[in-house]
């Protein structure tokens, strides 16, 4: 008996734990850190907190800085743009947006008076002009200059008026003042002028703003751990009901989910919980009858697709590309893998996009049609069951990012379905860095699966224009169609939305007839929040969950 005595302590511990489990410990349902605070968990830490430097284009960065840096325009959960610290959005009807006889445009913005930077200095027209100048300075490493380069000049007739002159017609001239956000001239000018090429290594240029102008103030950034914002008392817009917002960064998804389950997270953003784990979490929450977590997944603007290299000896034939699309059952795929929560996409534009063409050719699953098209293209069955033409087997290498479990599952399903019609597909995946850094830009692929992230105003210029094959753009399939190229270049310059819809409808029609890309599905991102957090309205698009943070409040 003596020799088992050493077991008594662990046994006693187990009993204590077991007994106290019977007492029960319900996870907290209320705010994690009091009714004045919202704690948001996310996976990635932003590298910087203002949009200009090249490495600051991260979604999570926007989620944080939209609270303390406001540049005039936002959009809501219905993807409707609205003016924020401006009097209103310029428009063609009231003359605030004019097309000049020489084809240039003049857009006038009126800034509301009374908004201040967090150091007390007023927000004026000069702050937008300054940001635009910095963005266009060749010594400063910025990447987002496409819109800024369309602007000819900006005048400020007074401190609260901006007159932006555009070089030519641009359809989205009222979605951003000059494509360069805002920067406090008084706080950054001296440093920038001293050495523009080193500006990215000092305050502001390094992405950490010393002052903001939004409803919240950047209070503390514990690198690698959290960012804390506090309400700015002099904000003259809608007063924030929640005094403090805390962003916490946990890179491991399981740990992050543990924080959701333990009640430590009041909310999570779109990047926090990958879809498959979100689905599992949703099932668990339902199974356990938990009322303290609300999980939502809405399809957004992230489009999963397969680029077909149209220069490939087989893929250059449109009938082969169409057959590949007919041969796969995408409805079954999204049902099997995602319980239908990530819908099949039938075009490169998502259904929620203003110019989505509902009447597009949809390519329902039809293996007989696929076989017929391949036969028509001259393919006959080889001795091993794989189709061949002129001794060349109909075989492809199918690539995606290695280690992405969802994409790997999709590959396996599609591989089996293509095999059923005599197409041999070999899976060969690569690390993201090699895949995106080398394979795609140098077009060393036959079939490549990945996603594009679009904005509500996305168009096809740069993506499917015949003159933007790498390195001049990102037309990775190498698709060339003169009518499509013409439309894609013309869309951003067409001011009439109805006309743009018509143009993009035609483009989608041609595109889906040619099938240089196989549309798969639209990704849905899970966001979670506690039921007590009111007015939490995710956009499922590029605008992060915090777009309306001053409206958030806890129910009592």
């Amino acid at each position, binding site marked *: 008996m003596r020799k088992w005595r050493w077991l008594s302590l662990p046994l006693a511990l187990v009993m204590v734990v077991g007994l106290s489990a019977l007492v029960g*410990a319900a996870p907290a349902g209320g705010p994690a850190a009091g009714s004045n605070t919202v704690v948001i968990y996310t996976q990635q830490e932003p590298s*910087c907190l203002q949009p200009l430097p090249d490495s600051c284009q991260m979604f999570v960065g926007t989620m944080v800085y939209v609270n303390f840096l406001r540049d005039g325009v936002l959009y809501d959960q219905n993807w409707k743009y609205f003016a924020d610290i401006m009097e209103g959005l310029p428009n063609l009807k009231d003359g605030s947006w004019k097309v000049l006889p020489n084809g240039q445009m003049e857009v006038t913005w009126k800034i509301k008076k009374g908004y201040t930077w967090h150091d007390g200095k007023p927000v004026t027209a000069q702050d937008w002009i300054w940001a635009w100048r910095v963005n266009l300075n060749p010594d400063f490493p910025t990447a987002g200059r496409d819109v800024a380069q369309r602007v000819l000049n900006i005048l400020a007739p007074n401190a609260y008026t901006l007159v932006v002159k555009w070089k030519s017609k641009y359809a989205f001239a009222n979605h951003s003042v000059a494509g360069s956000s805002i920067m406090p001239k008084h706080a950054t000018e001296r440093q920038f002028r001293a050495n523009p090429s080193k500006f990215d290594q000092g305050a502001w240029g390094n992405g950490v703003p010393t002052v903001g102008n939004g409803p919240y103030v950047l209070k503390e950034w514990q*690198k690698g751990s959290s960012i804390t914002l506090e309400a700015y008392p002099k904000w003259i817009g809608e007063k924030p009901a929640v005094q403090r917002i805390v962003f916490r960064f946990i890179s491991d998804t399981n740990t992050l989910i543990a*924080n959701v389950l333990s009640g430590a997270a009041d909310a999570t953003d779109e990047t926090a919980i990958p879809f498959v784990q979100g689905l599992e979490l949703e099932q668990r929450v339902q199974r356990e009858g938990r009322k303290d977590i609300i999980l939502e997944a809405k399809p957004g603007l992230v489009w999963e697709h397969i680029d077909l290299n149209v220069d490939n000896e087989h893929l250059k034939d449109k009938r082969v590309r169409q057959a590949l699309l007919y041969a796969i059952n995408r409805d079954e795929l999204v049902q099997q893998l995602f319980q239908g929560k990530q819908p099949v996409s039938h075009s490169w534009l998502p259904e929620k996009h203003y110019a989505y063409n509902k009447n597009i050719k949809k390519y329902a699953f039809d293996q007989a049609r696929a076989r017929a098209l391949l036969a028509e293209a001259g393919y006959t069955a080889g001795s091993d069951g794989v189709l061949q033409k002129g001794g060349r087997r109909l075989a492809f290498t199918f690539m995606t990012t290695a280690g992405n479990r969802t994409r790997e599952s999709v590959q396996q399903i599609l591989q089996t379905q293509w095999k059923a019609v005599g197409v041999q597909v070999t899976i060969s995946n690569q690390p*993201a*860095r090699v895949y*995106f850094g080398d394979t795609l830009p140098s077009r060393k692929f036959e079939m490549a699966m990945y996603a594009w992230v679009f904005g509500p105003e996305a168009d096809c*210029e*740069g993506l499917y224009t015949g003159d933007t094959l790498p390195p001049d753009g990102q037309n990775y399939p190498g698709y060339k169609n003169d009518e499509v190229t013409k439309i894609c270049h013309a869309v951003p310059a067409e001011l009439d939305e109805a006309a743009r819809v018509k143009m993009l409808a035609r483009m989608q029609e041609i595109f889906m007839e040619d099938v240089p890309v196989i549309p798969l599905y639209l990704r849905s991102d899970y966001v979670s929040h506690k039921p007590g957090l009111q007015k939490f309205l995710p956009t499922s698009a590029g605008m992060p969950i915090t777009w309306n943070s001053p409206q958030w409040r806890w129910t009592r």
Partner: protein
Amino acid sequence: MGRYLARRLLQMIPLVVGLSVIIFMLLAIAPGDPVDLLIFGNPKIKAEDIARLKHHYGLDQPYHIRYFKWMWAALHGDLGYSRTYKVPVLSLMWTRITNSLWLQIPAFLLALAVAIPVGIYSALRQYSTADYAATFFTFFGVSIPAFWFGIMMIYTMAVWHPWTALPWMEWFKLPAGGFSSPGIGEGLPKYIDRLRYALLPTIVLSLLFMASYTRYTRSSMLEVVRQDYVRTARAKGLHERVVISRHALKNAMIPLATIVALSIPGLFAGAPLTETVFGWPGVGRLLVEATLGGDFAVAQGIIIFLAALVIVFNLVADISYAYLDPRIRYD
């Protein structure tokens, strides 16, 4: 000894330089530089802007020029600038190494404090119940993946925590990952708060250390207690405690001391898996993120620093061996 030391120190110079060349080239020639990765999400970026960015970061220069520029700056104490974190690499590394040491040193000391007595006891009572229990524990510790054990600890201590229903036990509902509570302030509250966050990852890390050190101590002790000099000590009529502590233990510790010395660079390297699971901003996690994110300056700085540490601590292990084992002399 002095000459030996001088020779070894001189040998270290070409070794570190050679390593720096290999590390630099491996990172530089890997496909996809930071600008390539950056432009991928931006279909409207123009070729001229890509060229401008590559020029700004010096990525358009030949590899050897880039290497010499980097080496020259490194010799002047400048390891470069982190593109991702927007701070000098040296200060970033220092912060992250300090964070890692917050976990590694307590875990290491805890592991030694448990492993040495358990290993000795286990060896002295070979095939006893306690020995089987210790052996089971060490196999468990060596075999269990750190990330799984970490997640289990989080679920038990941060999600499930049934004991918090008992009075005075609320403190033992530990945070499910992270580094510190926002707005906790400075001084004692900060350290108490940090302790709560560090507790679980420290336990996970120490289990890994503990398991292997227990194995080493046990096997080393088993070997020593069978030696003639231990039998002689017993035959002289010495008390068992003296035989073990003066004659057996001292000799059994020689291999362990070497292993411990060689483990020290590893403490500075952090623990990527444990740090990732617990959201701890340590240097291990930083290295993984920098490598995947193409933040070359950071990855290079950390790898070269760690390589230099390994070289230095190899020398320390060799020297300590000479002090511990009188049979070894370096001439």
